[in-house]
């Protein structure tokens, strides 16, 4: 196992953020090695591309000027999103049903203003929801259409939403991939005024020759 001193000596290629990521991965390898593959997947290039697109779209619409508190539904480890998001807001609360996600953030915090709670966003109470100025869900393909969510009446009027899904139908844990942006739009609840809808090509996990599509919808209650 490479020692920390060795990592520090890699030199110009290493910045503080990269070193923190390596430290976090080492900690996971030492303490919960069974989740390392899952954690590594959360750092894939596709994750960066999708989250970067989400943040830049929200920024270009001027929404961050009105945002203090962000709630991220089904946040996974927040490994990519939280660092991109943290400078734009005061607090980030992420919910994920996998207790490893909370553990991952607690032992090696990803952002100083971010916390993860272990909750199933469809079945459990989400007390921070009513404080949210912006609700992000980049995991819509993993759950039923958001128009069926029973917590919309807990969201304050004026709250912004930023949701993403994709067309990666057939991936084992994707219970709700969509074929088009229109199909994704039809999964939004009536209470949302849509501000922006975008579609991007994303690299296919197992093929250089084909791409998948990522759909992004920004709206306001």
């Amino acid at each position, binding site marked *: 196992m490479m020692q920390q001193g060795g990592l520090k000596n890699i030199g110009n290629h290493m910045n503080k953020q990269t070193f923190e990521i390596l430290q976090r991965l080492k900690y996971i390898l030492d303490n919960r090695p*069974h*989740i390392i593959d*899952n954690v590594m997947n959360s750092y894939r290039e596709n994750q960066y591309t999708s989250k970067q697109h989400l943040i830049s779209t929200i920024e270009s619409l001027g929404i961050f000027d009105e945002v203090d508190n962000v709630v991220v539904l*089904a946040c996974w480890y927040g490994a990519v999103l939280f660092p991109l998001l943290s400078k734009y807001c005061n607090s980030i609360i992420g919910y994920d*049903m*996998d*207790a*490893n996600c909370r553990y991952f953030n607690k032992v090696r915090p990803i952002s100083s203003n971010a916390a993860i709670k272990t909750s*199933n966003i*469809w*079945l459990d109470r989400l007390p921070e929801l009513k404080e949210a100025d912006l609700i992000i869900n980049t*995991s819509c393909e*993993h*759950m*039923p*259409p958001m128009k*069926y969510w*029973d917590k919309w009446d807990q969201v304050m009027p004026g709250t912004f939403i930023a949701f993403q899904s994709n067309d990666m139908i057939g991936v*084992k*844990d994707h*219970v*709700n991939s969509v074929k088009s942006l229109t199909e994704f739009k039809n999964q939004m609840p009536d209470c949302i005024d849509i501000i922006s809808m975008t579609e991007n090509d994303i690299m296919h996990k197992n093929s250089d020759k084909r791409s998948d599509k990522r759909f992004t919808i920004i709206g306001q209650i």
Partner: protein
Amino acid sequence: MIINILCLKWGTKYSAKYVNRLYNQCIDHIRIPFKFHCITDNNDGIKDDIIIHDIAKYSIPQGQWGGEVWTSQKIKAVTDPIFEGKILLLDIDMLILKDWTEYLSEYNPSKLTVIKSPWVDRDHLHANFGSFGTGVNSSIIFTYSSYKDVYNIIFDDLYRYNYYSYCYKGLDKTLYNVCSKEIEYLPQQTAYSYNKGHEPSREQVYLCLPEYNVCLFNNNEYNGIELHDATGWAKEYWESYE
């Protein structure tokens, strides 16, 4: 005390032979008084000693967002007040390998008692929205007639039933993800799987392990061998209960 043993058979995938041979295995390995019930849509060929019930009574709703909690008919069956006292529900595609009398007569279940799947790596189950697997297998359910907590969780709230149907799609994932406080587990050496083995590595399959009470032929991924296609020891054993 008389135990009520229940099994379900519907559709055409499994023949009456499955029910009759399971009944004969119970006679051999459960040496306490029991009534054997088959809940079915077709009782042709089922032995006269077996009490028949219409499966329509235990039908389950379709989830309004799609899907259903597949095989949750079992929960409706084991909570039917016509079955009194201890209830043992068995899938019909299994082999009973070892005498089961002592456990079933002496143990009094306080919850819904199911199999803790020994072939599952439990470290990975909560990732990926609980969609990859389940640590619970309901091929055997041992409970008592008035225990309704699991029934209430699954069926009493339509929103939640819709969610389970859409995301979990079946009883075992639903039990694992939302009924953890309402279930308990059968002893470790109660059941193993012909197709998936008895340990998470799944390196050894198709084994005869007579130290277990039951060998399951669970095949929900449709890449395993059905009991009626099995060869060797499993075929010989099953046929011996004709």
